[in-house]
């Protein structure tokens, strides 16, 4: 067990980090801990939690903007947005179905892991919606980058740098996002029985139409259930109806498309977002691989028996692959093949012992790794924040 400190304000965060930096004692940073299984298991005697920094601090629907402190539950912000007919366009990814646990995901964790869902293919990731952050760096200094306006090139974009930095640069204390109106309704076109190559080809064809497909996933067949190739449309009622007809016509060569209504569509995309429902036992290790969609099915084929279950999202550009959690969870064979496909792989789930022994994130080329180290050093010269979480130091 580690000693946990939960400051009420940025001054408390600064004091905790200053103390750690002065003593050169590493600290772990966490929100509620719902994503604690992500990254390499970092070692530290002390944990700094943002769970007491809470509250929506700005909600301006007519400016498409919302701000919240880091410890605010994502669900609370989503509820506030829903009240005014808006949402996070990136469809926040929730790691609980992968890791289990009851902890309520926070805004800080969402930003620190850039955790985006299926709509990322259309609307961008967390990093694209994030327009401002406050962050206490490893120097125990609180800085702002960006702000509350969606077009801002004043100074370097440290907002993007903070997003997905897994606590390596600082503790995010508050985040501001561009929001979008929630769609009036949605529908999903389903084509059954396609193999991976044709399924991904259908997704790419759909993404190349003007009908603004907001989700594009291929669920391979398993246990007697046929494969499903899924394309989501979200918009005003009339537009969804019209576009579903046009899209089905454009995809006719791949097969007849069934149409899921709004409720069935929502349920399906919740499962696609969570990924776990299609990936079998939670005891399996889980990889998340990014590549260009058309190279994805070939990569899966080459991985062969290593793949115990898989799922394509983002038009095929995101592949979830379940492997055996034994040994190195397949890293030794998988990484070179992923590199050949000009992709990269993150080991999202595996026992601590496995994640401690290998690179969880795609290793960087030496020149890039040197730049990364320089940036980390610029923010956390004492190297006390989440040491080893992203990279072996």
């Amino acid at each position, binding site marked *: 067990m580690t000693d946990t400190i939960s400051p009420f304000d940025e001054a408390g965060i600064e004091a905790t980090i200053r103390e750690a930096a002065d003593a050169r004692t590493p600290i772990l940073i966490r929100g509620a801990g719902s994503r604690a299984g992500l990254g390499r298991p970092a070692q530290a005697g002390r944990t700094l939690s943002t769970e007491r920094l809470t509250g929506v601090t700005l909600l301006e629907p007519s400016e498409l903007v919302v701000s919240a402190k880091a410890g605010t539950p994502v669900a609370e912000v989503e509820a506030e947005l829903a009240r005014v007919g808006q949402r996070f366009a990136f469809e926040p990814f929730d790691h609980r179905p992968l890791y289990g646990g009851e902890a309520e995901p926070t805004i800080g964790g969402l930003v620190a892991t850039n955790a985006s869902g299926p709509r990322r293919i259309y609307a961008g990731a967390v990093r694209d919606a994030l327009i401002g952050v406050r962050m206490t760096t490893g120097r125990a200094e609180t800085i702002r980058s960006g702000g509350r306006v969606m077009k801002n090139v004043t*100074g370097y974009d440290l907002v993007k740098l903070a997003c997905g*930095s897994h606590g390596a640069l600082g503790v995010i204390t508050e985040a501001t996002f561009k929001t979008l109106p929630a769609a009036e309704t949605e529908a999903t076109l389903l084509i059954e029985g396609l193999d991976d190559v044709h399924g991904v080809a259908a997704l790419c064809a759909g993404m190349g139409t003007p009908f603004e497909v907001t989700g594009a996933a291929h669920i391979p067949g398993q246990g007697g259930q046929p494969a499903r190739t899924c394309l989501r449309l979200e918009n005003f009622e009339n537009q969804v109806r019209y576009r579903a007809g046009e899209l089905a016509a454009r995809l006719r060569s791949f097969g007849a498309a069934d149409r899921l209504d709004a409720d069935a569509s929502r349920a399906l995309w919740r499962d696609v977002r969570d990924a776990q429902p299609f990936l079998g036992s939670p005891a399996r290790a889980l990889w998340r691989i990014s590549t260009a969609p058309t190279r994805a099915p070939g990569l899966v084929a080459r991985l062969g028996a290593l793949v115990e279950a898989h799922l394509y999202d983002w038009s095929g550009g995101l592949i979830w692959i379940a492997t055996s959690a034994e040994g190195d969870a397949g890293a030794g064979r998988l990484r070179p093949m992923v590199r050949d496909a000009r992709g990269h792989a993150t080991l999202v789930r595996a026992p601590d012992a496995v994640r401690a022994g290998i690179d969880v994130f795609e290793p960087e080329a030496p020149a890039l790794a040197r730049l990364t180290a320089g940036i980390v050093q610029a923010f956390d010269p004492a190297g006390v924040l989440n040491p080893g979480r992203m990279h072996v130091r």
Partner: protein
Amino acid sequence: MTGIALPAPDPAILARRDEIIAGLKALVPGEGVITSEEERRAFETDALTAYRRMPLAVVLPSTTEQTAAVLAFLGREGVPVIPRGAGTSLAGGALPQEDAVVLGVAKMSKVLDVDLANRTVRVQTGVTNLGVSAAIAHEGFFYAPDPSSQLACTIAGNIAMNSGGAHCLKYGVTTNNLLGVTFVTLKGEVIEIGGDALDAPGLDMLGLICGSEGQFGVVTEATLRILPMAEGARPILFGFASPETAGACVAAVLGAGIVPVAIEYMDKLAIDICEDFAKAGYPRDVGAMLIVEVEGSADEIDEQLARIGAIAGDHGATYARQARTPAEAAAIWKGRKSAFGAMGRVSDYICMDGTIPTGTLPQVLTRITEICDNAGLKVANIFHAGDGNLHPLVLYDMNDPVSLAKAEKAGEDILLACVEVGGCLTGEHGVGIEKRDLMTAQFTRIELEQQMRVKSAFDPNWLLNPAKVFPLDDRLPKVAA
């Protein structure tokens, strides 16, 4: 000379000019090294034309390898480098200095690969913004960021400044449409960052480099996200009696769950000048005008415009006219996109670029009018209303130094007003030299120091575009990264 200070050239570098040029010529053959005064003249300024500085030399590499060799050489020799795209920066981002070599990407302008299935293109960064869309238009695709200078400006410059445009309300700015870059450091290292997949591993270096104003390295190739064109698009013009009613209408449209691809605002003076020039059919008898564009099939457009029209009516629109033909639509956009050129026929001007929370529009417009009235200057307001990005054009007389000084002061006051209401100094043009000395109004010293440490991590000796972005007198060039 004018108000913004520039560093005194280093005499030791000036004295070594011949040697430096010889070194460059050994790396880049033939016409790639420009040394004559006459030819260098073309590079002495950018679109912030009040400032001019003759560079030591200009080098135009033809390949990434040459770029790497040149950067390694200049880095080793301690010679400042001014990266340059097409030189369309309105903020002085490409302004040279006498002891610096301009490194232009103009000779690297090919579209290398088009991948429609994966919706990406790979380009050399000297290609123009419009050149990217032109290469894929016949396939029904386009590249979304559309700065007004898109005919001339390069992807290299777009990446350096994280350029926007009129349609970024829906499609985002450069950083949202950039998947990968070939990045050359001052040590001459060639680093591939990102690729053609959606998320790159590690820290978001791509996001950090985009908008770094040529202060980290030189991007020679880029992988861009492209999008299928909408079935159709149609702009509608609304006229309002006052800026306040126009501003309230924008807020109401967005609040109603409609996100048009573009919402552009023009005030009376901007309307008059653009209409004189472009004959776009703008209404002359209104106090403010909005151009709202929506996309989709003809029926979808009708439905959206009906919703928007009803909201505009509720907010006191006194004029409404849809484009009925593609020619009318083109004319409406021609008026807006030629605004800067049209203004240039009438008067010299400086174009400001603050962003404000859109709800503060009426109060900021009132403030802008006050500031310019007090200075005895005219101002025309053009505004990406959906995203809060203001472009007040402050008119002055270039031949009258007093007038320029007043215009620069008024411009500063306008930007400070933007910061005061929770906005920022620059929405899409970048800091350059123009807003450099105002950065202390936006950021604390601690925040600026942290940004400077990031620069030092890429460029410890501050050779890349060194006189830009950060105030000269408050620098920590030796800040340990």
